[in-house]
């Protein structure tokens, strides 16, 4: 019976240790979520900017002055929003564990 008690206390200690380490990870996630906030905010802007730049370059190649820049501006916005949705989905999946 003593052996059994010994096992119980050991299990308790191990569980406590596990809890502490998972709390540590929670702390770690706090800084990484701030990191992904930085990522999301700049990604949204960068996608729109890159889309517009591509439209501008293609416009000067094909001589279709205003049209491609307008189309690619909207494509860039769509890409930015899609990217934010994708990242948010990944973050949600991570939270499940």
């Amino acid at each position, binding site marked *: 019976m003593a052996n059994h008690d010994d096992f119980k206390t050991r299990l308790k200690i191990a569980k406590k240790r596990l809890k502490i380490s998972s709390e540590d990870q929670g702390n770690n996630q706090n*800084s*990484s979520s*701030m*990191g992904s906030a*930085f*990522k999301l905010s*700049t*990604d949204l*802007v*960068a*996608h729109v*900017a*890159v*889309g517009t730049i*591509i439209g501008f370059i293609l416009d000067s190649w094909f001589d279709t002055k205003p049209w491609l820049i307008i189309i*690619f501006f909207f*494509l*860039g916005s*769509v*890409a*930015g929003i*899609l*990217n934010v949705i994708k990242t948010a989905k990944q973050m949600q999946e991570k939270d499940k564990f």
Partner: protein
Amino acid sequence: MTTNPMHQFAVYKLGPEIKIAGIDLSFTNASLFMLLSAVSICGVLFLGTKEKKIIPDRFQLISELFYNFIAKMINDTAGSKAKPYFPFIFSLFMFVLFCNMLGMLPYSFTVTSHIIVTLIMAIFIFFAVTIIGFLKHGFGYLKLFVPSGVPVVLLPLITVIEIISYLSRPVSLSVRLFANMMAGHTMLKVFGGFVISLGVLGGWLPLGFSVALTGLEILVAFLQAYVFAILTCIYLNDALNLHH
């Protein structure tokens, strides 16, 4: 007294002008601080690995901390296949971190607050990841732009969107680091200027703000280095483990 908050970002030559084949290669304050950060990284790691004690001293502790941090980050985000790229990501993280942190010292110069520095690093990462992807998967790497499970009608649109999103990687990577560092340091200088102009009577409030902002800036300096490294890992993961 210089009250211009942008004055701290000025690049000036130290020593004589060096010109090789029409390219200005003079030693500037930016080069000095890049050199300083490289030397201090080497110094910390040298002191940390000189004596391998069981109970580590400060330098050994901090080197082991950095090593574990990066090793864990690579393992979590890019998997075991990315192990060979550890030295690259480690040096990248350390360089960005030390440049940011050295920039926090008064009278110093922040190398990463110049977009040319961050853009060069981001473009290098972009090309390196693209080349690695093509080497590992051949032309199958182009599947990255064609997500599976998309209706054929939408495929051209989605492909264009994916290409825009791939090309915006170096832009967002470099602009994030540069903008955060520059905005933070400008803000610090502006609040510092308020302290001087408001004098003994009204200067205490902005002084408190600059103390708080300094703490925030140290956090941002670390966080930006972390984000830079973790995004490199994520891009590397896309190149190494091609899946959707």
